[in-house]
């Protein structure tokens, strides 16, 4: 059993990779900032859970996954969908509720699915994705496919019975699941120490004989390295691994959250550790990025987002005649 404690910050790998990681984090950040605007403009409705502050986790973990691996995520999954390779247009149109959305506008922000990139949601039931991830890994095990199923969840989900049932099953049957705990220290508004009798989350996985590691989730380089080791272990052993990424949500839980449960001082403290800001600063120190490069990067991302918004605006609404389509499969569809 290994438990890698949070280390001092990792050295930057190389310029190209570091810039790539920065770009991915910025794509998520700017996409979500735009989404907030569009929510206020009432273009996006329903629940909207922002990942802002936590980008290093999705981006770092994605580096460790191949296109053939599967991802099971939560209702806070815009970042996972973007770094998985889905087009921003398909995601934005989905949040608009338009037919060109990745799920024809039926799922919205909380239910992003993509067959090509093997993203199995987007689940709005906390803990609901655990068993599905175990099942996907079971299918790979039975079909002798050497793939990893990455199951992302918040620390709040670890109080659900499904976490314990699934951790036990994955370990008992030795199934290739990479469990990634995005520990942002609040289950909606309930602090970790108010919801868990044991706040050392890795020890819960270790109790099921699952190897664990804990990493600074605000350091994308560290997350990428830890996720690579973790996924390598899953690939080599065909067995589960538990990776805890300690991170923080800068924005409210959803669009209806006055944030009574945490202080501005605490939030500001974490914002000092913004994964995008800190990587940018380190790149500047190294001389690997300058203001004009950064400006160009921002421009490119702004263009990508503008085109996604345009795509969503232009897309049609699904015909109401299709309301009952896909309650059951069309004949011949499998």
């Amino acid at each position, binding site marked *: 059993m290994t438990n890698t404690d949070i280390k001092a910050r990792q050295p930057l790998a190389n310029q190209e990779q570091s810039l790539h990681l920065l770009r991915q984090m910025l794509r998520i950040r700017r996409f979500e900032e735009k989404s907030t605007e569009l929510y206020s403009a009432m273009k996006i409705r329903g629940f909207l859970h922002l990942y802002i502050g936590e980008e290093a986790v999705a981006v770092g973990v994605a580096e460790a996954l191949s296109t053939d691996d599967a991802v099971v995520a939560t209702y806070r999954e815009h970042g996972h969908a973007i770094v998985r390779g889905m087009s921003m247009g398909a995601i934005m149109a989905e949040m608009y509720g338009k037919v060109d959305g990745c799920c024809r506008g039926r799922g919205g922000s909380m239910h992003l699915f993509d067959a090509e990139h093997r993203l199995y949601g987007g689940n709005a*039931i906390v803990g609901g994705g655990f068993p599905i991830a175990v099942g996907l890994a079971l299918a790979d095990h039975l079909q002798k496919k050497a793939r990893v199923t990455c199951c992302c969840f918040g620390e709040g989900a670890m109080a659900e019975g499904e976490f314990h049932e699934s951790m036990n099953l994955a370990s008992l049957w030795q199934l290739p699941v990479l469990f990634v705990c995005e520990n942002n220290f609040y289950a909606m508004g309930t602090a970790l120490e108010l919801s868990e009798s044991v706040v050392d989350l890795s020890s819960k996985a270790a109790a099921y004989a699952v190897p664990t590691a804990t990493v600074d989730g605000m350091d994308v380089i560290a997350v990428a390295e830890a996720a690579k080791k973790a996924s390598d272990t899953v690939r080599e052993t065909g067995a589960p691994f538990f990776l805890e990424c300690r991170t923080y949500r800068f924005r409210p839980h959803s669009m209806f959250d006055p944030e009574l449960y945490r202080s501005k001082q605490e939030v500001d403290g974490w914002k000092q550790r913004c994964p995008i800001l800190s990587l940018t600063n380190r790149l500047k120190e190294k001389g690997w990025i300058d203001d004009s490069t950064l400006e160009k990067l921002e421009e490119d991302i702004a263009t990508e987002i503008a085109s996604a918004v345009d795509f969503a605006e232009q897309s049609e609404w699904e015909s109401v005649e299709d309301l009952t389509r896909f309650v059951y499969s069309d004949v011949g569809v499998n």
Partner: protein
Amino acid sequence: MEQQLRKMTYRDALNEGLREALQKDERVFLMGEDVGRYGGCFAVSKGLLDEFGPERIRDTPLSESAFTGAGIGAALGGMRPIVEIMTVNFSLLALDQIMNNAATYLHMSGGLFNVPLVIRMATGGGKQLAAQHSHSLEGWYAHIPGIKVLCPATLEDARGMLWSALLDPDPVLIFEPAVLYPMERTLAVDAGPVAIDKAKLHREGKDLSLISYGSCLHKCFDAAAILAEDGIEVDVIDLRTLRPLDTESFLTSVAKTHRALIVDEGWRSGSLAAEVSARIMEQAFYQLDAPVERICSAEVPMPYAKHMEEAALPQVASIVATARRMVHG
């Protein structure tokens, strides 16, 4: 040519269906509590572990939500899992997975992900198992769009519904009335897969339509025989598939008999019987010579004592008495 018949139990028929499915398709596997070494809580999967090995006959921990959800995941991943939940009562621990995931994925993903999963479970009372082990919740499950709900009452269906369910691209729940496991009948030697989208008219008569499914179907058979001695001839319809309902089957019958009595082991309020009744009222009101009636279980948690349990469940005597009153006034 005379059809060759074999004597066997409902349990044997289910076992044969499972064996056939495991032989026919390598993607099929069975998982659930005690399905392997124990041979199944009701001995339905007896012998399968020896024949197919522990990778395909998987004993699970007591984690209904995890192994049912794992069935969904495995189905999404290219397998054809059969999940056995020991009884419908325990299925409530997996309800989140069934309702929030299995039933929603296809529609919610805009048609991207269908879930070809079969879930089997025992259902119903009549074995003095008291309040937590006697539920008939199949009608409740039939409320949920996105899943199909089957209830085999005969050996043909016990043997043949499973393969048809496995061929279905969407989640199918099969409810096996526990009192039927030891029921002995004959089954054709060449019995095979059966349709899962049609009800079946088992007995024909002109005076009244008895509409039922599951273990109550057999009570309807007994009642029909008694009624025939009085000169009352009834149609006996086995709904077989509770979702989607074969509405045409009972509307056709009612158009002939002009009287309908529904016998359903579920509780009356919001029951499947209520749905059948409403459809008759909506679509065949002017065909009726008498109000549609229902015989359901008493709305109480099931008591243990035999006489009390019998009083709570639909019985042949009450079916006969109600039918007589409906026909003769």
